[in-house]
């Protein structure tokens, strides 16, 4: 009877060291988890930023090319993002990204989809 009591008492016990060890492991696991999610979100933001900037640069460069090649030139491009063209600042804006172009044109807001860029002395957009 005495032995059985001792056995039950010991098997239900967890030492303080074990608790501390589990706590440390959980804290480390938590830190790793938080950092991993931070890195993941940073990468996702960077990827979106790069895609937007890439689209912005391609489109602004195409506008410049259509303009510098002269009258009668036109090009077709597929926009992956809603894009605005600000003529006086010579800026193409894709969300928060903006890029410079060289062309005489007018302000225009374009939506996702195909756009025709036409040089008629002034660069125009048709969608």
């Amino acid at each position, binding site marked *: 009877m005495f032995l059985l009591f001792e056995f039950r008492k010991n098997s239900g016990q967890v030492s303080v060291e074990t608790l501390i*060890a589990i706590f440390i492991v959980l804290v*480390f696991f938590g*830190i790793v988890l938080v*950092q991993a999610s931070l890195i993941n979100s*940073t990468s996702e933001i960077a990827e979106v930023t*790069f895609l937007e900037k890439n689209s912005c*640069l391609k489109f602004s460069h195409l506008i410049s090319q259509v303009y510098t090649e002269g009258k009668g030139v036109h090009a077709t491009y597929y926009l992956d993002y809603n894009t605005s063209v600000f003529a006086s600042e010579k800026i193409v804006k894709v969300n928060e990204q903006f890029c410079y172009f060289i062309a005489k044109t007018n302000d225009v807001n374009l939506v996702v989809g195909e756009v025709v860029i036409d040089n008629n002395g002034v660069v125009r957009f048709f969608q």
Partner: protein
Amino acid sequence: MKKIFSKGQVSSYDVLIALIIFLLMFVVLRQLPMSNLAVAIDDFTYSEMRIYSGQAFDSILKTNGYPIDWDVNNVEIIGLAQRANIIDEEKVIQFLQLDYNNAKEALALNKYDFNLSINSVDDSKDFSFGVNVPSDKEIIVIERVIYYGGEANAILKVFK
């Protein structure tokens, strides 16, 4: 009883070493994606500079500019050409009188510095416009053969 007590012990040196290894790995793994990101941003900045240099050079050498008879007071887009790659000397005179910052803006090189030089074969009409090119920076250099009262080389250098 003594045996049970010793089971709960952890060597403090083992814990210390494990902690150091964990922290080192943690720092290395944390830095890896960030350094990759920095390299990607550098590559992208270089590509951006290359695109802007190309479109500025095309504007200078292939277009009349805007307005067509632009001068120092009303220039919106800089173009020195009569026709593609044939330079109009009257426009060069106007160009050389431009304020550097206005020229940068008109060439859509806002974020960058540049130097444009045209060297004719007989050296009679050589000119250079812009700031001095630093030796310690990454530079985009574009060169093209043009007609400027004879054969000439146009060189555009763009840097940050």
